[in-house]
C-alpha cells in the first residue's frame, strides 16, 4: 500500500492488470517496492547488457540486491539499476514502420561500393 504497484515497461496495455488480477481489489496490496531493471557490464570495455529486474526500496539497495542476484559468479564488473517505469521502449509490433527509414539506404554499407582491386590489397 505504501508503494503503489508500478506498471512495468512491458505492461503497456492498461487493461492487462485487470485481466491478470483474480481478486478484484480496487486497492493494490503490492508492498514489494519499486521495480528496477538491472544492466550488467560483463568485462572492462564491454557494453552493459540487460540482466533482469528486481524490487528494492531505493537505488542503493537495488544495486546491492542486483549484485547478489545477478552477479554471484563475477558476471559483472559494473552494474546499472534503472527504475523500470523510466524506460521508454519502441514497440515490437511497430518494428517494421519504425525502422524502415533505414531500409532504402544501402549506400550506408561498404558492400554498396566497388573499388579497384589494387587499393583493396593495399589496405
Amino acid at each position, binding site marked *: 500500500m505504501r508503494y503503489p504497484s508500478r506498471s512495468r515497461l512491458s505492461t503497456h496495455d492498461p487493461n492487462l*492488470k485487470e485481466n491478470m488480477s483474480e481478486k478484484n481489489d480496487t486497492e493494490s496490496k503490492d508492498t514489494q517496492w519499486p521495480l528496477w531493471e538491472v544492466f550488467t557490464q560483463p568485462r572492462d570495455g564491454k557494453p552493459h547488457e540487460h540482466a533482469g529486474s528486481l524490487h528494492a*526500496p531505493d537505488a542503493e539497495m537495488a544495486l546491492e540486491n542486483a549484485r547478489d542476484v545477478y552477479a554471484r559468479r563475477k558476471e559483472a564488473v559494473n552494474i546499472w539499476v534503472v527504475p523500470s517505469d523510466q524506460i521508454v521502449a519502441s514497440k515490437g509490433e511497430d518494428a517494421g514502420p519504425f525502422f524502415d527509414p533505414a531500409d532504402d539506404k544501402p549506400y550506408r554499407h561498404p558492400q554498396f561500393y566497388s573499388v579497384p582491386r589494387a587499393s583493396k590489397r593495399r589496405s
Partner: protein
Amino acid sequence: MDEESKKEKFQERIDNGETIEPKDWMPERYRKQLIRMMSQHAHSEVVGMLPEGNWITRAPSLRRKMILLSKVQDEAGHGLYLYSATETLGASRQEVIDQLLEGKAKYSSIFNYPTLSWADVAVIGWLVDGAAIINQTMLARSSYGPYSRAMVRICKEESFHKKQGYEMVATMADGTPEQQEMIQDAVDRWWWPTLMMFGPHDDDSPNSAELIKWGVKSKTNDELRQSFVDRHVSEAHEVGLEIPDEDLEYNEETGHWEFGEIDWDEFWNVVKGNGPMNKERMKSRREAHENGKWVREAAEEYARKKRLAKEKAS
C-alpha cells in the same frame, strides 16, 4: 487486424523460431499458460530451498557446508530470476507470492518428500538437479524471451549443483559399508519421486500439446524422462549403485533403458497436497516470510531516513 489473424501471425512467428518479447502481441491463453508455468517454476525454486536447508547446520565438513549454503542461495536466486520473468507478463509479484503463501499455487512435488539423512543432500544434487537440468536445457530454447534467458542463466548454475551432488554420491558409494548403505537407501527413496518430476504420461498431460505448439516446450514429458533415465542409470552403475527398479533393462536396438511403471496414485496424491511433507513445507515457507518481516521493514525505514536526510541537505 482481427483476433484470428493476429493469432495466425503469432503462430507463424513461433514456427519461424522467432522469440516472443513482453511487449509483443500474444494470445491471452499463451500469457496465462506461461504465468502458470513460470510462477510454479519460481515457487519450486523457493520451496526447494527447504529440504536441503534442513541440513546446512549439520553438514559433515566446512567444505560441504559452504557448498550447500552456496547452492541453497542459488535456488533463491533462481526463484528471483523467474519471478522477475513472470512479472514481464503482467502478473504482479505480490499476487504471485500470495498465491504460494495462501496454498493456492502448485510447486514441484519432489519437495514434498523428507530429507532423512545427509546422503539425501547428495542424491538431491545428483538426481533432482540432474532432472531439473534436462527440463531446463529444453526451456532455455523456449519461445518466450525472458523465460528462455532466465533458463540460460539457471542452467549454468545448475551444472555445479548436479556435479557437487554426484561427487558426494561417488564419495559415499566408495566409502565405509555404513556410508554405502546410506547412499543406496537415499537412491532407493528418491529415484521414483524424481521420475515423477517430469509429470504425467504424454497421454495424460493436457497442457503438453499446446505448449509444444507454442514452442514453450520442445520435448514431451516422456521424452524428457527417458533422457533422464538413460543418463542417470549409467552414472549410477559407474559408481556401483543399484537403481530400485526390477523392470529396468537396456534395449540394444533403441539404445535406451526401459523402465517400470511409475506409481501414479502416489504422484496424484502428492500433487493434491497429501504427500509426506506438503503441510510442513507450506508452514515453513509462511514462517520464513513472516520472520523476514522485520528485515523488509528495516530496509524500508532505512530508505525513508536516507530520503529525508537528502531532502534536508538540499
